[in-house]
């Protein structure tokens, strides 16, 4: 069951509401639909730079909405090989489609086993339910 399409069954999630989708040794990352709803209309995205080092659990950048500002954390460690520069002029893409057009960056991962410590879709949805109460 998914709301916005995409390969949901292969997506893995962090407790801080980021997702990672692995293809070969490159993972695309972003924030979840739950997260974008919490933030409200996103007005600005502070993206990492290509070539930056990403560390699992550490802040990679920042998402700004009118009333709140939130770091987003990298689900995995590795090197940033691409960033979604569309977000510079259209930060609302994250609100419109957090799992597809709203992707944030692509990481060439250094440790595939890190994927195992992330939640799968079912676990993540349960986590979200818990947070709401």
């Amino acid at each position: 069951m998914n709301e916005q399409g995409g390969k949901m069954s292969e997506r893995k999630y962090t407790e801080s509401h980021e997702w990672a989708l692995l293809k070969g040794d490159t993972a695309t990352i972003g924030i979840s639909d739950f997260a974008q709803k919490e933030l409200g209309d996103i007005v600005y995205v502070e993206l990492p730079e290509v070539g930056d080092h990403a560390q699992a659990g550490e802040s990679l950048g920042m998402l700004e909405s009118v009333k709140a500002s939130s770091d987003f954390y990298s689900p995995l460690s590795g090197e940033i090989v691409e960033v979604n520069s569309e977000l510079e002029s259209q930060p609302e893409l994250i609100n419109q489609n957090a799992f597809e057009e709203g992707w944030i960056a692509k990481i060439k991962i250094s440790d595939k086993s890190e994927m195992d410590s992330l939640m799968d879709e079912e676990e993540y949805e349960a986590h979200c339910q818990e947070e709401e109460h």
Partner: protein
Amino acid sequence: MTFIPISDNDRKEMLKDIGVASIDELFEVIPEKIRLKDFNSFEGCNENNIIRKAKKISIKNREAAESICFAGAGYYDHFVPAAIDSLVSRGEFSTAYTPYQPEVSQGTLQAIFEYQSMICELTGMEVANASMYDGATALAEAILLSLRSTRKQKILISSTVNPVYRQVINSYLSGQSIEIIDIPEENGCINIRFIEENANSETACIVVQIPNFYGIVENGLDIRKAIPDKVDYIVCADPNSLGILEAPGKYGADIVVGDCQTLGIPLSFGGPSNGYFAVNSKHMRKMPGRVVGKTVDLDGKTGYVLTLQAREQHIRREKATSNICSNQQLAALRNLIYLSLAGRKGLKEISYSCMENSHYLAEKISSINGFSLRYDAPFYKEFIIECPVDASKLIMNIFDKYMIIAGIPLSRFNKEDRKGLLIAVTEKRSKQDMNLLVDALKEWEEK
């Protein structure tokens, strides 16, 4: 007088509605140990008496307040048009608070927008905020912005920057481990070669003041040329000087700040004034302070709101770009009205007048035996005179005899500098004023 309109009867009714027998019950949560039994160590009075009290004290200031003022060093006796006080005293402006409900704060918000626009025009920069506490804290915040955005930990700051501002900067930076390097001076001017030799990829910013603390107009373009790419060029500029001096944005400044006391704010024994803060769009999102943006309402009507608030303390908390909360709004409003009244012609004339006067006076004084101009460099409205005697004694003497405050002795900033006197001349000084000072100084002429 207490301005409390609740009568004893009202109080009784309200206590009843709340369900308590007395007001003290409302304070029961305060531990008994610290409850005050009495609090009456000073008396109150009515409006008539407070005016009398204030007048009595004010008499002690009267002579100094009425004397002809040649004191500068960051605070100047410029003309303040009457229309400013008239407008700023309107309760709609003065008794409003931060525009958190923009629908009923368009007066404040539009004023900030217009102020931001004027500061951009004056400084030649793309973006300005709603203002900071003063010029010194604005300069400190500019450095913090540069450190944050470059992620470097070294700054080069000219020794010709106002020493009092340096003290404030030191306090603001004391919480971070930053290397602060002084750029030495030569003949009252910044040593540009030092910048070329010492600024590198580890440097966050170069900080200069133009006109500098001695009143000298440093060459902003030459300084720019000496600064490597990716190092921020921070210029602290007296906005009054920008009537005649080039906008720092035009000669490549990255951050421009200064104190706005010279834009329609009386001396006020130092406060309150406000500081302006202007950047180019690359620094926009990291800029501290409040910012107002233009937008539309539900009906498509133009309106103004506080924006980019997520940078600010009330949202980002410890990650905020600064801890600043208020923006000295009423002071900024004074600046805005001043610039509206002066306009392009007026500000140019005022600036030119300052320069004309200061050069007239400097020439006259330096032709008195024993008095000389300390530096031989282009200056704006301030200059340093080398006196034949201790400058602090000199000025008190002249004050007693002539009711003139002849300037600020440099010993205030450097105990060893006993003979230096910093003299500032604004558009308010007439030829008569200046000639009188010259006469006063002639009494100390070396024979």
